[in-house]
């Protein structure tokens, strides 16, 4: 089972390594969002710490939508997805590989974006900075796991690029709230983010399980 997952993952990573479509477009898009937000809010001092967490999370969220749409659009070309559906392998492997690949892409974007972010918002982290290494991956996983699932769900509809954010964002809202509040409390050092980290963890476990269980149904929907 892990062998198939590995094959899917290597394939997705190789495609991305050759084209660098997803990471580049996400990176530029996220950068644009960060610049736009700093232009419209003129963040300085304590205020920049208050909003920085929210801006980072929302920028990641908007940016990831473009990559998530790409993830399955590749499979549609040349009827690859139909071939995948006929292959005698569990769909969950393909799903999990896609989630892992996209998780890596979004994480790369965040790692590159973070220094830019710190500079543009004049940030000085007042809380435990290492907790960010817990919050951001958990939040990203929530976004990417649900996003990959809903991208697969909306792939065969008309105007699918439009549909994905419309169905993903409402479901993602509690995780976004937890992510924003946890990042905010780490940046300002005012409160303890433990509760929000637990909520994110719970959200990840619940929705990853449900996605894995229901993915076969979505893949074979006819």
């Amino acid at each position, binding site marked *: 089972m892990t062998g198939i997952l590995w094959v899917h993952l290597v394939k997705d990573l190789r495609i991305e390594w050759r084209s660098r479509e997803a990471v580049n477009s996400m990176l530029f898009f996220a950068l644009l969002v960060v610049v736009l937000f700093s232009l419209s809010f003129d963040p300085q001092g304590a205020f920049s710490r208050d909003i920085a967490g929210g801006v980072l999370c929302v920028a990641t969220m908007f940016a990831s939508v473009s990559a998530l749409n790409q993830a399955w659009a590749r499979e549609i070309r040349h009827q690859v997805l139909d071939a995948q559906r006929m292959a005698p392998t569990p769909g969950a492997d393909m799903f999990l590989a896609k989630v892992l690949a996209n998780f890596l892409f979004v994480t790369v974007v965040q790692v590159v974006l973070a220094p830019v972010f710190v500079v543009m918002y004049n940030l000085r982290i007042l809380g435990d900075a290492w907790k960010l290494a817990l919050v951001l991956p958990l939040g990203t996983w929530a976004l990417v796991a649900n996003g990959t699932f809903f991208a697969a769900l909306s792939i065969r509809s008309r105007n699918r690029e439009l549909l994905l954010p419309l169905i993903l964002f409402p479901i993602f*809202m509690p995780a976004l709230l937890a992510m924003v509040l946890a990042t905010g409390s780490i940046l300002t050092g005012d409160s303890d983010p433990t509760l929000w980290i637990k909520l994110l963890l719970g959200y990840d476990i619940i929705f990853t399980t449900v996605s894995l269980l229901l993915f076969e149904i979505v893949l074979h*929907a006819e």
Partner: protein
Amino acid sequence: MKKLAISLYAAFTVYLLIRGFHQAIFVAPDESTMHEIQRIFYYHVPSAMSAFLFFAISLVGSIGFLASRRNQPEFAQRFDALALAGAEVGVVFCSVVLVTGPIWGRRAWGIWWTWDARLTTTLILWLIYVSYLLLRRFAAGPQVQTLAAVLGIFGAIDVPIVYMANRWWRTQHPSPVFFGGADSGISPKMLAAFLWNIAAWIAWGVLILGFRYYVERQSQKALAHEAQQALDHV
């Protein structure tokens, strides 16, 4: 016979609605602190309860569809119609809650809106089910039923998480009036008006649900008929 029963039920619903209106506006006593504006309670809370009831019906429809779509396609179609009708009626009730809430809040709290646990939860619930209806509109073809059922289940799982998240975040909405502890409960006359309105609005919702279910079934049958004719011509 069937038409007579439906007409009788519709007439009964209208009677309940009139009775509920009379009870809420003329019979129920004036509330001591909020006065007349408190009467919106008889619409706000029953609508909220109905919204949850019809979303639950939609969830039952979604699960039923997924469970029976392989073995009993005929049942699955019924479940699908139920899921769609439940979601639509639920969205209507949820919209009523979201409209009456701010009107009440403006008088009682002095503000139209606040990002409190229950308000935010209701708003997100509304957004989730509107996105469900959008999916049904956008996705074409027979797979839309399966996809919508999956999204319906996702939405239903999300609701308790949204609620807990917002509850930890902040709370301004009053704690539950019923079963909420020692101070909860309302005067008997208010309770009577409240119960009449719950009965009336649920009866009305079931009536609309029935109509919507019927319309959806007709359109399913028309589609199936068209497909069959196309096959026969080949």
